[in-house]
């Protein structure tokens, strides 16, 4: 009787339009939309080079080095560069050439045009540049006059912040690795320069270069992705200057490591995985599909309890024990949900080429356990009270979407905000747990944290199934 029930439960699940729409079509379509909307931002070569004019009212070598590293530059007036600048530029370029495989090219983020102020305004007016960076003497480094917190820019700014953070981090890595020095361990750039045989004057020049920061300001004509990218770059550059300034002073001051922690967010051993925001969206997508198991499993209790539906009454009158029908329902829903999650993962891995860090079987395992957790939650919610089935569906969908929102499916920064102010929410959020398991697979060399998240899912599953059985244990009802 169990197998008979199982067969028909699976048939019904796979034929339900809601399952096809919400578990299969919706995530696939949404994944494609995310891919189209955000996928290219994070791919090498996919970043559009932003033309920007630079008006130097004061010569800032450090800024010049940064701009040349971030893209290509040209100047309307030739000027002799110092030995140190030439050497730094040459060293970084050599390193890039040595590491270049020929397949991957470093993206050109900016095309900087050094010019006079009047020329810059003309270029901006004609739309040839997206903004003008003014390099002035004195002032607070990397301050911008651009309008802050512009509502229209908010969403794209989130992406650019991530991107800018990665760019500055990469620059620091380049600078550190070029001299075989580990910045994270606090060895100063000055020590490195000495070891390279540069003179005391060069060191003084380097220190002055880091300490004599300029006031940077930005003029833009309109708001958009490209303008935001310039703005964010300047902000990140300001942070970089603060850090390197401290390094130049010896690098061992107590605050230095803390400052470094701001930029180099996490110094853990990385796999070949991808940690960009697009992939995080995809992880959240799979987590959401897994949790949609709630809606699939709502009917288990409904169809078994005589006081909840006519199906329940009919089954309760039958010669099959309630436990058998519930178990068959649970198994069928788990099967259906694992199937849907597997389709979603396969679609993302094979069609959208989402990088799962080369550990696809473990991703399937995480997805499967997440799906079972979703089903157990649905079983529990379905067993609660005599609320209409449609209302329970609505509640479940709202719960899943809210949890997905808090996990960063709709707004990338929300999870980070929660992590800062209420980390317990992320620890308890089932969608975040599933998404994090994929994330850890992608970034960790070992699987400790991944299996930790799997254990959390299993605990949730056991709790919800136990509660579900507790609520459906009744054999007679006070009213129907």
């Amino acid at each position, binding site marked *: *009787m169990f197998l*008979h*029930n199982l067969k*028909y439960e699976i*048939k*019904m699940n796979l*034929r*339900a339009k809601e399952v096809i729409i919400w578990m299969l079509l919706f995530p696939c379509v949404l994944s494609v939309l995310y891919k189209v909307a955000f996928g290219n931002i994070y791919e090498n070569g996919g970043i559009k080079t932003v033309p920007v004019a630079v008006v130097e009212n004061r010569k800032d070598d450090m800024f010049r080095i940064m701009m040349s590293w971030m893209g290509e530059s040209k100047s309307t007036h030739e000027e002799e560069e110092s030995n140190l600048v030439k050497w730094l530029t040459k060293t970084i370029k050599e390193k890039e050439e040595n590491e270049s495989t020929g397949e991957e090219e470093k993206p050109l983020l900016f095309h900087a045009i050094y010019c006079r102020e009047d020329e810059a305004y003309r270029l901006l007016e004609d739309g040839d540049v997206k903004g003008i960076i003014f390099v002035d003497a004195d002032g607070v480094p990397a301050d911008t006059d651009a309008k802050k917190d512009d509502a229209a820019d908010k969403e794209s700014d989130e992406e650019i912040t991530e991107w800018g953070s990665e760019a500055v981090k990469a620059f620091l890595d380049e600078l550190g690795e070029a001299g075989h020095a580990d910045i994270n361990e606090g060895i100063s750039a000055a020590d490195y320069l000495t070891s390279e045989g540069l003179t005391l004057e060069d060191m003084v020049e380097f220190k002055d270069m880091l300490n004599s920061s300029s006031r940077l300001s930005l003029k833009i004509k309109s708001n958009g992705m490209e303008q935001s990218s310039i703005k964010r770059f300047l902000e990140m550059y300001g942070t970089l200057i603060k850090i390197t300034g401290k390094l130049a002073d010896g690098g061992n001051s107590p605050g230095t490591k803390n400052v470094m922690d701001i930029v180099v967010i996490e110094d853990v051993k990385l796999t070949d995985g991808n940690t960009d925001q697009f992939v995080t969206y995809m992880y959240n997508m799979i987590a959401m599909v897994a949790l949609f198991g709630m809606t699939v499993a709502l009917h288990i209790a409904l169809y078994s309890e*005589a006081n909840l*539906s*006519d*199906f329940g*009454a*009919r*089954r*309760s*009158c*039958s*010669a*099959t*024990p309630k436990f058998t*029908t519930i178990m068959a329902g649970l198994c069928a829903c788990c099967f259906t949900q694992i199937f849907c999650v597997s389709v979603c993962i396969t679609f993302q891995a094979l069609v959208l080429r989402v990088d799962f860090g080369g550990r696809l079987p473990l991703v399937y395992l995480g997805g499967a356990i997440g799906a079972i957790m979703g089903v157990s939650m649905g079983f529990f919610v379905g067993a609660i009270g005599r609320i209409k089935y449609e209302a329970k569906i609505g509640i479940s969908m709202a719960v899943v979407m809210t949890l997905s929102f808090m996990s960063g499916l709709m707004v990338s920064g929300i999870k980070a905000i929660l992590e800062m102010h209420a980390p317990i929410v992320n620890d308890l959020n089932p969608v975040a747990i599933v998404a994090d398991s994929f994330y850890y697979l992608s970034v960790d060399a070992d699987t400790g944290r991944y299996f930790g998240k799997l254990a959390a899912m299993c605990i949730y599953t056991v709790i919800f199934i136990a509660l579900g059985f507790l609520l459906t244990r009744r*054999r*007679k*009802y*006070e*009213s*129907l």
Partner: protein
Amino acid sequence: MGETVVKIANLVKNYKELRALDHLSLTIEKGEIFGLLGPNGSGKTTTISCLLSLLAYNEGTIELFGQPMTPTSYDLKARIGVILQNVAVFDELNVYENIDCFCGLYIKDKARRRQYVDEAIEFVGLNDFTGFKPKKLSGGLLRRLNIACGIAHKPELIILDEPTVAVDPQSRNKILEGIEELNKNGATVIYTTHYMEEVEQICTRIAIMDHGKKIAEGTSGELKRLIKNTETVTIEMKEVNNALLNTMKGLPNVYDVKWEAGRLKIYLAGGEHNLLNIMDALKTSGTGFGQVYSELPTLNDVFLEITGKELRDKD
């Protein structure tokens, strides 16, 4: 006396302050089509729910096939078929699959189940619709499918809770014929309804319920004999005078005369040649009249006389 299939003794069921069943006792013998007749809210469905051990009750005992009925009496449940008031079939499964799905809750053997499902489809006349999903079926066909799902496993006791609500006359007749056929094949049937015509048509014994109590029990004839009225003669006429009314009241066997909405109703208690006497009186008075017809008492009259109210609201 045959085998007792159902024995309910002093059943009491309270919904908080409301007493839904008030010391109800019933005995149903094997081979009967037992009708539970009563207005909405009289306690018919509550009785069935208690009988099936779905509802907890406050007092009394219920025995099926001589054994106490409990929620875990799966051997007893295997001998019962239930057709509930609302259609309960799965939209995702077609006609054949629905019947097989519910039949599988009782019959493990695949070959036997296949045979039973085919017979059930044949019985309810859904042969041409086996591949149809329920949403493609009309209301009547859906009711038939609902019945097939309840009787496919060939139960000894079939409980039908108002199976003809919102069903067209053709499907209703088909359902009633089917119930009689099931009974002929050996099944005992409990049939609840508020349609007295159906009960009179198919039930071998009837219990009339009101406010959770059994107010009368017996065959249709026995119930009708409980009341004074044996015949009601109705005469259509434009107007009536007091002299005629008094004449009619004075006729033999007449115990009441009412004039309402262009109809003169004369209530009679037994006797012979009542209609001839009435026609003679009409001719003598010289009053013009239209149609004249005579009606035998119905279960509604029984209900009306016992409770002082109609069995169901007039359509």
